[in-house]
């Protein structure tokens, strides 16, 4: 019996999503090793992201010394081969959704596996009494950068956002919005690099991880890497089923498929 092609690719997409989730999940902190016991160190120290069921083994499962280097591979360092340019409408970054730009729901979005997460996008809400002055200043600037992005001025936003990481290099939101600004400027590879940094800073925040995956999907899509894009969108939805950037993109993709096959 033949499995329909569409179902097959969907299945493959889910499998890939799980694999990528595992391999890209935030790593456990490095622990100062205790004097060695006879038991060998565990080979993998990669923690799957929250809200995900145990998934398929990670991409690299071979035993590795600590700290593990599963995420960074040689191919990540070299410039990715330039794919065929995406279609014009796909490359229009200014029209992409952002977390501050609510969009209409999409009918064709895949069924979410988890309930939508509460909106955690307000950075000013994160300035609480215990927050260091540097972090507070950095968050305020990030918020300004976000507004400039929403106002359609990514160049100015970048100048502001670069300040955020100077003040507080642990502010992952700053890196996220820098990635978004670079995406808007059409610098997709640079945006992907920044998302990787953002991910290393925001590993414990599912809402933001979902945003990172969605934006990663947008970048891949703009680069013409549709398979990777789809995987990233699915990943974003697994973390937060309410991620509209991802659901809309997937809806658009499924809507485009028949046309494409024609």
């Amino acid at each position, binding site marked *: 019996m033949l499995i329909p092609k569409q179902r097959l690719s969907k299945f493959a997409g889910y499998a890939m999503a799980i694999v990528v989730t595992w391999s890209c999940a935030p790593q456990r902190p*490095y622990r100062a090793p205790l004097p060695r016991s006879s038991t060998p160190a565990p080979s993998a120290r990669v923690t799957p992201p929250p809200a995900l069921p145990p998934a398929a083994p990670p991409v690299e499962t071979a035993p590795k010394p600590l700290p593990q280097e599963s995420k960074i591979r040689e191919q990540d360092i070299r410039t990715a081969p330039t794919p065929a340019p995406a279609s014009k409408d796909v490359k229009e970054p200014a029209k992409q959704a952002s977390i501050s730009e609510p969009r209409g729901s999409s009918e064709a979005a895949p069924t979410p596996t988890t309930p939508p997460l509460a909106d955690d996008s307000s950075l000013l809400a994160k300035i609480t009494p215990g927050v260091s002055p540097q972090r507070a200043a950095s968050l305020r600037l990030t918020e300004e950068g976000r507004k400039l992005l929403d106002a359609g001025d990514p160049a100015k936003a970048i100048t502001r956002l670069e300040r955020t990481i100077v003040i507080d290099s642990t502010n992952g939101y700053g890196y996220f919005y820098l990635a978004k600004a670079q995406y808007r400027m059409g610098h997709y590879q640079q945006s992907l*690099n920044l998302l990787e940094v953002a991910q290393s800073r925001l590993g414990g925040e599912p809402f933001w991880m979902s945003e990172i995956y969605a934006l990663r999907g947008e970048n891949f899509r703009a680069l013409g890497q549709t398979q990777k894009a789809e995987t990233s969108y699915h990943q974003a939805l697994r973390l937060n089923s309410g991620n509209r950037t991802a659901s809309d993109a997937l809806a658009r993709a499924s809507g485009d498929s028949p046309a494409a096959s024609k």
Partner: protein
Amino acid sequence: MKKFQLRIFSFGLIVLLIITTTGLVAGAWFLKDWEDKVTKKFEGRKWDFASKIYSDSYHVYVGLSLRRDDLVEKLRRLGYYETSGSPKTQGAYQINVAAGTIDIFLHDFEFPTENVKGYPVRISLQGNIVSGIENLADKTEKFDLELEPEVVTGLYQRIWQERRVVKLAEVPPLLIKTIIAVEDERFFSHAGVDPIGIMRAMLVNLRHLSLQQGGSTLTQQLMKNFLLSDERTLSRKFPEAVMALIAERKYSKEVILENYLNEIYLGQRGSQGISGVWEAAQFYFSKPLSELTVGQTALLAGLIRAPNRLSPYRNAEAATKRRNVVLAKLLDDKIITEKQYDAALKEQLPQRALVKVTNEAPFYVDYLRRELDQNYPKDVLEKEGLRIFTGLDLRIQKIAEKALTEGLAKLEASHPALKKKSAEEGLEGAIVVVRPQTGEIKAMVGGRNYQKSQFNRIFQAKRQAGSVFKPFVYLAAFMHGGQSGTQYFPDTVVNDSQFTWNYDRGQSWQPNNYNNDYYGAVTVSRALESSLNSATARVAQDVGIRRVREVARRLGIESSLPAVPSLSLGSAEVTPLEVAVAFSTLANGGVRARSVAVKHVMDQNTKVLEKRDVKLEQVISPSLAYTMNQLLKGVMARGTGAPARRWGFTRPAAGKTGTTNDYKDAWFVGYTPDLLAVVWVGYDGPAKIGLSGGEAALPIWTEFMKAATANMPVTDFVSPSVPGSEKSEDAPAEKCGSATREGEPPGAPCPPAPAKPAEPV
């Protein structure tokens, strides 16, 4: 006889004819030449515009650690001046010590991404922390502001004239009338030369028996500035007058006047000449032409006669006197009313500490120049008035320069042999400072004395890296493990004993430890802290030299790295800048930032020609970077970098010494999460300094870091598990909690630094 006389007469006539004809031809030729020159000047390119190099702007935000004195010094350098009352005009500031506030009326500034109009602002300080920022114009709370960058130097040919060209319509009529009244009151009625004016000048000169006045019209002055020398001689006067007549015949009074207003020299700031009324209004009053008061207009017009002698910055009394003379003339000519005259007399003269623009970062500028030369032809750089914004921090630059020159002098003083050798060869050093998060080069000193040697050792000198290379060996070991199957951890025990590394068809290499002292079984952390050669080479052999090389590349080393065993101990030649980039990657949690000196390039019309954003790439995992940072903190706590602690640098920091074969190069690279500096000391030639990195480079690094970080918040390296939790305002001077030594519990007190650090060859 008559015949002879006739002959003489005929001959004389012919001679006269020849002379007259020659004179006429020569006169016509000169006239044509002068006309061509005048036409070419009026219709061609009139001025060259020097490009300006700016430092980084100064970002002030709520929460910033900022000493009042530092802010005041910054304001002074930017040409702000203190007033006793609330600042009413751009460039003024007032300090209120009791309230802990500084009110500043900011200058206008065209930043690459926005044009900021100056406004009054209040900065409140609680101790050394900025606790509030308020816009005094609209009483709104602000969270940050940006002070404009400083001009570092200009790129120009021959002389540096600072000027912005304006249209005649942009110049206030009062300024035009005033200049005409005091410089050439018959401007609109003469034909380029004013005989009445000349007669008057001659009388004055006769009376004083010296050249007091020239009687030049504005057109003559313009011709002199455009086409002739500054010499005040009668032989220059003739062509000047003829050219003025030519110009008046060919061009309208308005065209001549507009050129004059843009051309005229009105002051000097160091090597920077202030030309044209727009630039002068900015220089003296920090305001656009349209906002000049009557008194300011009179002062400006009065300056034309002798801009430096009558400068309010140099001689307030002379400037006031001249201004009042001009005001009286305006009143006499009924250009201003008596009321305006009285008010203008009461106006205060502009005050400002005259900060000269002297290139304080020549090596940095040379580095920039090389970067810029790739995209901009020399003529464009020196004539098109580009504005080049950089990452340079002049405060840090000065500290770096001082630390290097004083450090090298101290070394020579404490090591007489070095001084003797220096007399022949010249002990050299270099320091480069980078912000790890963005890759911005904050300071660069490429040598001891720029006047003596412009060779920039930061990016032009390739020197053996020595032990600075060792962290790459251990990173490779942590990442890949050994070919023997050994997994490496900071507490993995390795063998520090002599051995021979056989490689490539019968070749062998034997690494030696410093003083031939071997320590047997040691942990990786101990091997790195004490920079043990043998142990490191053994690990490199197990991991494979190609993997070590790959890690170095990944972090940012670009020079050729031969895959030979000695690479593990830093036999490859690298530049200090490469070392800075590679270790910045560690400081920045595994994120490599492209090194950036030029950030923006803007043209004269404020169009951004080039924008170099921060370019980042996560090249090793945050946890791996954190591990290495912890190990290198151990170097500072217990290893070869420990003397820095004794010398008073107490912040959380990581670092590594480097000493090369035969003691030719001494290195130290060290960093906090926010600032990294690499110091190299050695000779340009083959001479040995005979000192280790800890002895020669570390003292310079320590002095630099103590001063450079004095006003920065104390930060520590972030554990990847707790993002945002790293900021500690009261980090202990020395924490040995990472327990990278065997058998010591976390938080154990630091053992004393080794009496003599085991420094490798």
